[in-house]
């Protein structure tokens, strides 16, 4: 472990204090817009924290998902809620309840702090094993190795989960709306600085997304990070009214959504025939297969994340 200089400790302290202050303000701010804005800055701070914790891969994911698409999802929700009748939810809890829950949460935090201070040294881990076996996959990035070779089954299930969640999302459509076009188109026409931004940003973003996916084999990056950036750019073109989300009955959309998991599954079964197990890659074929699966996953993840933000389909005019 690195000894950590004075200046590094100072930076980390400031980062941690800001992180806690922003987390507190997310929960304390009364106005939804401000709370979601605080949440986006929180995602950015978390991305820096992940850099400091030595994982650029996670930092990229956090920047793309935490600060990017989650923020968009929440702000779109907040602005739609504002226009409808507010949900009559449970009343604000009383002081005794607050004290009781506060005490419980403080106990949990204290227990976790105690656990952090008493973590075993030397720390157990699989870093050495992960790095030692990396040459057999032909990859240079151990995180990609874990995601697509050692623990490929987790990644496969996750890709399937995204499709299932999207189905759940679409199932919320009222009767007769199934197969329609999902929401939200925020601006019917844009011009001026906004028009310039939405003309220039998507091509730049698509290049960056492809770059992040492509370097993932050897450097921090990969399908999730690249896919999320591509998905965000697609959402941007909807929001600006340049394109519209596809009908959920569109066969092309459905093909794009399942191509990643499907290719992954096919490669998995091929492993039984051509290698020794499910999701095992034949000797010498690991890297090209992984890159092919990752490319398909990138496209599927981009489409699934964007469609998750769009919501359930409707056959009426855009809400």
């Amino acid at each position: 472990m690195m000894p950590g200089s004075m200046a590094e400790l100072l930076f980390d302290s400031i980062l941690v204090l800001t992180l806690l202050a922003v987390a507190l303000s997310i929960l304390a701010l009364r106005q939804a817009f401000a709370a979601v804005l605080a949440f986006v800055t929180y995602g950015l701070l978390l991305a820096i924290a992940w850099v400091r914790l030595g994982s650029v891969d996670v930092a990229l994911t956090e920047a793309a998902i935490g600060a990017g698409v989650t923020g968009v999802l929440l702000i779109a929700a907040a602005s739609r809620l504002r226009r409808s009748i507010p949900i009559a939810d449970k009343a604000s809890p009383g002081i005794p309840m607050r004290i009781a829950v506060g005490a419980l949460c403080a106990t949990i935090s204290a227990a976790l702090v105690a656990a952090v201070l008493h973590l075993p040294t030397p720390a157990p881990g699989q870093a050495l094993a992960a790095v030692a076996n990396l040459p057999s996959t032909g990859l240079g990035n151990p995180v990609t190795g874990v995601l697509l070779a050692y623990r490929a089954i987790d990644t496969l299930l996750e890709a399937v989960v995204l499709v299932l969640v999207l189905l759940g999302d679409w199932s919320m459509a009222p009767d007769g709306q199934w197969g329609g076009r999902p929401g939200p188109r925020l601006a019917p026409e844009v011009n001026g600085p906004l028009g310039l931004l939405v003309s220039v940003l998507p091509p730049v973003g698509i290049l960056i997304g492809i770059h992040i996916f492509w370097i993932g084999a050897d450097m921090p990056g990969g399908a999730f990070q690249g896919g999320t950036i591509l998905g965000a750019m697609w959402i941007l073109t909807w929001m600006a009214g340049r394109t519209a989300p596809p009908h959920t009955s569109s066969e092309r959309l459905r093909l794009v959504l399942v191509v990643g998991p499907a290719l992954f599954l096919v490669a998995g079964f091929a492993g039984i025939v051509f290698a020794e197990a499910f999701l095992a890659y034949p000797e010498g074929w690991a890297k090209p297969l992984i890159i092919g699966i990752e490319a398909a996953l990138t496209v599927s993840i981009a489409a699934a994340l964007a469609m998750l933000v769009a919501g359930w389909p409707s056959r009426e005019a855009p809400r």
Partner: protein
Amino acid sequence: MSELLFFAAAFLAGTVAVGLIRILLGPTDADRMMSAQLLGTGGIAALLLLATASGNPAILDVALCVGLLAAFAGVVFFLAASQGGGPDRAEDP
């Protein structure tokens, strides 16, 4: 040199973190967005300093990603704020 760069990053982080008070104070959504934008630019600058200080060029990709998504979030928040109506809106949905 790397020690100095870490100090610079710490100074920067402290500075823009203080600017975040505007998210709490407001008073308008525009002020809050400015505060977030300052933190975004400051965070990117801090990431660039960290990339050089720790000799890890992969961090530059994180900065690139943050720069792209900050502009994206800026557009979306603008659209949400500008269609939200007047200043006296419903609180706490």
